[in-house]
């Protein structure tokens, strides 16, 4: 079982959306448990969780306020934990396999000062200006950072529609590619970007 912790240094950077989409893509081939431990419970809302627990094909979702090691069920291939933003003590109890750090441009430096993990580390820069020049600049800036995988996600206005359409009917190609890399354990420090 792989435990993937998704965290950020501040709210509003897209951590829950990324957790939901990552769970969706991993669940295409594997049994996945998404634990929504964030305060506002947005990732479970995105996967249209209505009654506390919902199974759809391979994806199961828990909405929890407190994380306990007992919740990590070995019957799943992947457990994705949508953590509250830093500083928090709840998610620290979890012995994760992969730590995903989500940030926007403005909080990147702050995030880097918090990152202290010996686990597999993935950095996601979310909501980057979608214009090629800006994406190229960000890729250039982060390509040498000490992460096992780096992902640049452009700001896509239509992604907001996913809360109406459900994540089943909308796609995030960068997260899909990241999920594929996680499945293949292909962590070579490369940058995944739309260009």
């Amino acid at each position, binding site marked *: 079982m792989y435990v993937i912790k998704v965290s950020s240094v501040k709210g509003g950077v897209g951590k829950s959306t990324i957790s939901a989409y990552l769970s969706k893509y991993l669940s295409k081939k594997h049994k996945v448990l998404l634990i929504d431990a964030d305060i506002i419970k947005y990732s479970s809302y995105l996967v249209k969780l209505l009654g506390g627990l919902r199974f759809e094909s391979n994806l199961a979702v828990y909405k929890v306020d407190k994380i306990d090691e007992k919740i990590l069920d070995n019957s799943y291939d992947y457990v994705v934990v949508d953590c509250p933003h830093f500083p928090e003590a709840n998610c620290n109890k979890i012995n994760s396999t992969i730590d995903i750090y989500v940030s926007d441009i403005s909080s990147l430096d702050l995030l880097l000062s918090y990152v202290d993990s010996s686990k597999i580390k993935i950095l996601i820069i979310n909501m980057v200006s*979608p*214009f*090629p*020049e800006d*994406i*190229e600049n960000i890729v250039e800036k982060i390509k040498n950072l000490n992460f096992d995988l780096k992902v640049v996600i*452009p*700001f*896509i*206005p*239509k992604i907001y529609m996913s809360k109406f359409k459900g994540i089943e009917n909308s796609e995030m190609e960068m997260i899909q590619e990241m999920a594929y890399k996680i499945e293949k354990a292909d962590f070579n420090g490369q940058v995944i970007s*739309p*260009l």
Partner: protein
Amino acid sequence: MNGKLKIRLEVVIFTAILLSALLVWLFYPLWILRSANYAQYITPLGFEIYFFGSDFLLISPLMITSLIFFAFSAIIPIVWRSSRYSLYSSSFSLLLGFVMIINALIFEQRYLNFHGYSVILTPTGSFYIYFPYSTYFSVPFYLILASAAISTLNSLTRARWIPYNRPTLLDKLNRDIMSKGIIGAFSEWFERIGIPYAAESNKLMVKDLTLSTEDRGRELSVFFPNGEIIVFGKRGVLYIAKDGEIKYMNLDDGIKLTIAKALERAEINREIVEEKIYL
């Protein structure tokens, strides 16, 4: 001169034929006058006269010069590939060489043949003979003629008369983009095709299609796109549709998309066609 430029097949064919003509000429005369007991030949070094088993060579600068002109003509398009002027030089040099050969023939007719009599030079004197003979051109002459035809064709077509590896319009556009940049190249091409456009420093607008390379002024919007937007980066292209849907693609696909979207907005001016009909 650029060693990286590939040699066109047309040039290779020309050079091969001309060099083989010169090679054959070294061993076999270009023009022959043959009689029962004597012969006159045009060789690369001059006029060779054969008479009853003895050979005499009348060295002539005409043939030596023509040999040099032919060799220059064969080699110059191989060495100098960066310009079409090497093809013109080659043709001109071949023409000069050919003129030398014609001069040699005139010389032969004027001084070594006269009213059916042949002048047979020997090491010790000369004979003046009236005897039936026949004259004919041989293989090197026809090879030189063939290479002259090919050289002319090469000059007229810039060595592109064989339909292979011919640059398409897309190749030419891509080459222009490399040299003039996205905005410069597309503005030229829009003019050529007849697509009306408006230009700003880093933007081209074809009706409601905006083509841009950067957006330092933050004028473009992904929230409220005004028409369709295509933004070129160094490694990829962003396309924003009217409904705000965005799509990334590589540069080649971006170029093709720009052409397609611009052509959608082009108008064919039928009045010009009709004017030509009545003219």
